[in-house]
């Protein structure tokens, strides 16, 4: 992927080593990536991101607004993005549910933005202070209609920082909302976070159109990223609507145009999955069992994997850093080569459905599900690995 990047603006980069929680690291990552607008509504366990951004905003010259609710927060972000800012908001399940309508609008209008979901146990208001990974499908299928979204899942405060930058870069290039699916545990866990010098951080800047005014088109439906935007108020003539639209942005509500737009929206993400998907693999080669996990669960699974290896089981680890688009290609490659995929997650079995789909019956798939509220007992994952090895 050959994407133009620039060094980060030093104003937003608090370089050096820190002992920081994941929530704060998300805010620092956003500021380093050039985010200068944040509209949100506080909710446990994501409030620390909100607070950190609010505290840092005056120093950095960013705008922070506590809106009246999540619906307004996401709407303000769409507006600010078309006003030329890089924007972020943070929430968790109940707030995300309120945001999905306008996340769909952002996807349809190809508005770059980052939404962090620090997941807590649901359904509904559930258990606000307890961890979970129950919103994995919601990130992609929350908004109605066909949406190809990008979602990333960090496993540590350091990765919260790193992935916040990556989320902004992907969001700017593909002009798509990017969701960071973290969880209460990573959000509140403190670890060392090293923030590099600004000139070491690569940032995708807002791609602003500079050509003749009459030629400006806010959209190009070619299934690719990298298309320029403009800022409202700069004198360019364009339209932003959730209705099916032409390249100028005006409604063209026909089946033919819908095919053009939806194909583009899906293909710009799914067609570039090889460039977007990032995995962290360990000892997959020759493995009989592969544990597919993400976020905090991958760190719990490590303990089970280490114990299984001591028992002589050939077990590999595939940690999904990118959740959406799903790592379809890699699972299909491994299907049939490994005996079993073991999929632990802090939900009743969500991403395991994707693994099963791509395994296509060629490998066994064992779901190690959990109702949330705590992390797995590693022994339960170990037992699944043993079963998978039989």
């Amino acid at each position, binding site marked *: 992927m050959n994407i133009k990047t620039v060094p980060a603006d030093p104003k937003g980069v608090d370089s050096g*080593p820190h*002992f920081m929680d994941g929530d704060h690291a998300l805010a620092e990552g956003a500021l380093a990536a050039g985010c200068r607008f944040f509209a949100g509504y506080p909710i446990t366990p994501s409030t620390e991101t909100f607070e950190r951004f609010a505290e840092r905003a005056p120093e950095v010259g960013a705008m922070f607004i506590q809106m009246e609710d999540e619906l307004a927060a996401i709407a303000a972000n769409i507006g600010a993005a078309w006003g030329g800012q890089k924007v972020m908001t943070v929430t968790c399940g109940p707030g995300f549910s309120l945001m999905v309508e306008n996340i769909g609008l952002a996807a349809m209008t190809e508005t770059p933005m980052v939404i962090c979901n620090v997941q807590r146990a649901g359904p509904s208001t559930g258990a606000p202070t307890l961890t979970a990974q129950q919103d994995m499908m919601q990130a992609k299928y929350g908004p109605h209609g066909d949406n190809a979204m990008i979602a990333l899942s960090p496993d540590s405060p350091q990765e919260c920082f790193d992935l916040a930058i990556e989320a902004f870069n992907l969001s700017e290039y593909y002009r798509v909302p990017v969701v960071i699916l973290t969880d209460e545990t990573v959000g509140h866990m403190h*670890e060392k976070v090293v923030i590099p010098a600004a000139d070491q951080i690569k940032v995708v800047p807002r791609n602003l159109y500079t050509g003749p005014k009459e030629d400006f088109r806010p959209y190009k439906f070619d299934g690719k990223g990298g298309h320029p935007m403009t800022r409202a108020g700069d004198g360019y003539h364009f339209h932003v609507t959730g209705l099916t639209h032409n390249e100028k942005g005006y409604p063209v509500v026909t089946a033919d145009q819908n095919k053009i737009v939806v194909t583009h929206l899906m293909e710009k993400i799914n067609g570039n999955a090889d460039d977007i998907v990032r995995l962290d693999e360990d000892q997959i080669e020759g493995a009989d069992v592969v544990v597919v996990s993400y976020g905090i669960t991958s760190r719990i699974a490590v303990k089970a994997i280490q114990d299984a290896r001591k028992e002589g089981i050939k077990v590999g680890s595939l940690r999904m850093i990118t959740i959406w688009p799903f790592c379809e290609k890699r699972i299909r490659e491994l299907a049939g080569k490994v005996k079993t995929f073991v999929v632990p997650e802090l939900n009743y079995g969500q991403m395991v459905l994707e693994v099963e789909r791509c395994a296509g019956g060629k490998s066994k798939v064992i779901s190690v599900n959990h109702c949330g509220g705590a992390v797995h007992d590693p022994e339960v994952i170990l037992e699944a690995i043993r079963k998978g090895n039989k």
Partner: protein
Amino acid sequence: MSTQEIRFSGFGGQGIIRCALITGKALSLFDDKFATMTQSFGPEARGSACAAQLVVSDDRVLYPYITQPGILMALSQEAYDLYYPELPKGGVLIVEEDLVKLKSDHADLALRRVPATRFAEELGNRLFTNLVALGFLTAVTNVVSADAMKKALPGLVPDRFLKINQKAFEKGYEYGVEAVNAVGATL
């Protein structure tokens, strides 16, 4: 790879989570170790038993939770009652001696007692109890260096109270050194 697991406990408001933050920062920024801190998060952290956990290692900490703490610092009766049974034989038990009534002599543990609240009150405010206890812990165990702990303080205590917190740390540290000298070795 050597791993140490520490649980800091007391009641909400004693600065328990702050203890783990300071120690975690000292270890990971100034003592060249890896440290992962998790904490009580919820209504229980505000008034009743409160705990923060630190996993310390020479390598990256993968599993973030403690499995069996080798060191327990208990600054309240409730915390002591709740957590001392999980210490293994030879484990280090540090208690606030005026607030914790021991249930046994704990002959199988390395028990160390510190009147942290009393010392803090002598310094002017019981708010400094946690720093006295941290100074004591630093002296009686080999987990973290005093130098790193002192470096970790700025930014984690309010600027205007930095000096008095440093003093509280020193007070606990000196008392801990005396305890070590009495026994002849750190733990």
